[in-house]
């Protein structure tokens, strides 16, 4: 707690400065609402229950996109690391698919999948795929050659070498990829909703913008940030659990 105290104090000071500037500087609430107005809007959204359906949709899109992108990324990363010929064949296409701006694919996905959660989940999965694939490929390929030689000497099969040596050794790198993917998943879900969402936190921001409700936009920022931090911490917890388990064998 004492370690976090300076951060909390800084937050309080920034909020106090922001509030004072809005009140004393005569800044229009339309341009920059004071924190007190933002918190009041946030509380009203929570108390009336208007927030929950939007939060649920965005959290679901984010979780589904992250799960699909992570599983496919992990699988493709393992395949490319284990079969160099396949890597040489597919790497340029995988790279090209990642260089296409995923959000630009949004309109196409709406044509393909219609309005609703599916296009946003697909965009989020595509964004989350790359860090998992790249980190898995790097982690599995760069296992210490002496340890690989040890497994050869012990007569280990290819699958045993993958499951008992390469994946556990690559876990810290893979988990780092997952942490990056969580942050990107939030971006994917919210921005995906900008394009084709009717419900969700991103869609709510667009709706608030159309009625010039800056307080609501700021309140939604807080919710999105809190959601991101919650998921990031959940992944950190998972990371600690997984690494701890593997550290004990």
């Amino acid at each position, binding site marked *: 707690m004492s370690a976090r105290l300076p951060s909390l104090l800084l937050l309080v000071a920034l909020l106090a400065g922001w509030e004072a500037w809005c009140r004393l500087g005569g800044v229009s609430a339309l341009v920059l609402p004071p924190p007190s107005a933002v918190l009041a809007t946030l509380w009203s959204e929570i108390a009336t229950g208007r927030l929950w359906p939007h939060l649920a949709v965005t959290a679901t899109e984010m979780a589904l996109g992250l799960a699909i992108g992570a599983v496919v990324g992990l699988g493709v990363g393992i395949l490319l690391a284990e079969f160099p010929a396949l890597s040489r064949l597919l790497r340029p296409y995988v790279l090209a698919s990642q260089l296409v701006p995923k959000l630009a694919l949004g309109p196409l996905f709406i044509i393909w999948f219609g309005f609703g959660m599916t296009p946003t989940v697909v965009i989020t999965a595509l964004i989350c795929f790359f860090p998992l694939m790249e980190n898995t490929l790097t982690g599995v390929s760069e296992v210490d050659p002496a340890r690989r030689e040890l497994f*050869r*000497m012990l007569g280990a099969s290819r699958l045993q070498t993958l499951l008992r*040596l390469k994946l556990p050794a690559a876990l810290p790198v893979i988990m780092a990829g997952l942490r990056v993917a969580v942050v990107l998943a939030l971006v994917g879900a919210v921005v995906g909703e900008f394009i084709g969402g009717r419900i969700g936190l991103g869609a709510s921001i667009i709706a608030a913008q159309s009625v010039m409700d800056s307080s609501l936009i700021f309140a939604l920022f807080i919710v999105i940030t809190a959601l991101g931090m919650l998921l990031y911490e959940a992944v950190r917890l998972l990371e600690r659990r997984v690494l701890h388990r593997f550290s004990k064998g």
Partner: protein
Amino acid sequence: MSTDRSTPGFVAIEQVRYRYGANDPAIVDGVDWAIPRGEIHCLLGRSGCGKTTLLKLAAGLLGPSEGAIRISGEALHGPSLHAGFVFQAPTLLDWLSALDNVLLPVSLRRRVTAADRDAARDLLARIGLADFATRRPAELSGGQQSRVALARALIGNPDLLLLDEPFAALDALTREELQDDLLRLCALNGTTALFVTHDIGEAVYLADKVAVMAAGRLAHRRRIELPRPRHRDIRYAPSFIAACRDLRDAMDGEAGTAASQRPAA
């Protein structure tokens, strides 16, 4: 040490050559060597002389370009399951306890039984690590990690133990302790061992026979006629010092010859 000297060539290295590519120079160049069952032989040489390559050939990790390697009369085609290998670095798995690291060779072949666990604990106890079975490698010193690696190589009572400068990174006192551990463990089951080192004293202390390797060839061989079991005091005996001197002269002589044979840059 109880050894069966009736099988003179338990490990037979016959006219072995190894080169990386067809037109590359030979790293191992026509080596003939026989290790009787139960003996410890040391391969002594400077860095880059080909001794680690020869050891990997004996392990089946590399295949010879010419010649053959036989263990117990059978030609070697790939890593031998009857051989234990100790690498230069301990190569322990960081996420496993010391006990599970020792049990790794067993767990890769079949389900680990209570008897296997007892055998592994017994091995750890013999090398003074009885209280460290649940520790992970990061919680062990360099010497302790090397001991665990040695126990891992010995867990299935292999007929042959191959060691690639396993104690080179340790301080002198720890190295001597580990040499004693190795001699004790090999004597226990009459394990045959091929030990690669660049340390003359280590080679003389451990070996029944030492071969000096230079430029891929075995240049000098010497039987070490020191009594067993060996104790640290033997290092100060005139016969020990004489053996060291002889091997040093052989290494110096071969280094000079190798340098004169090397083409001018």
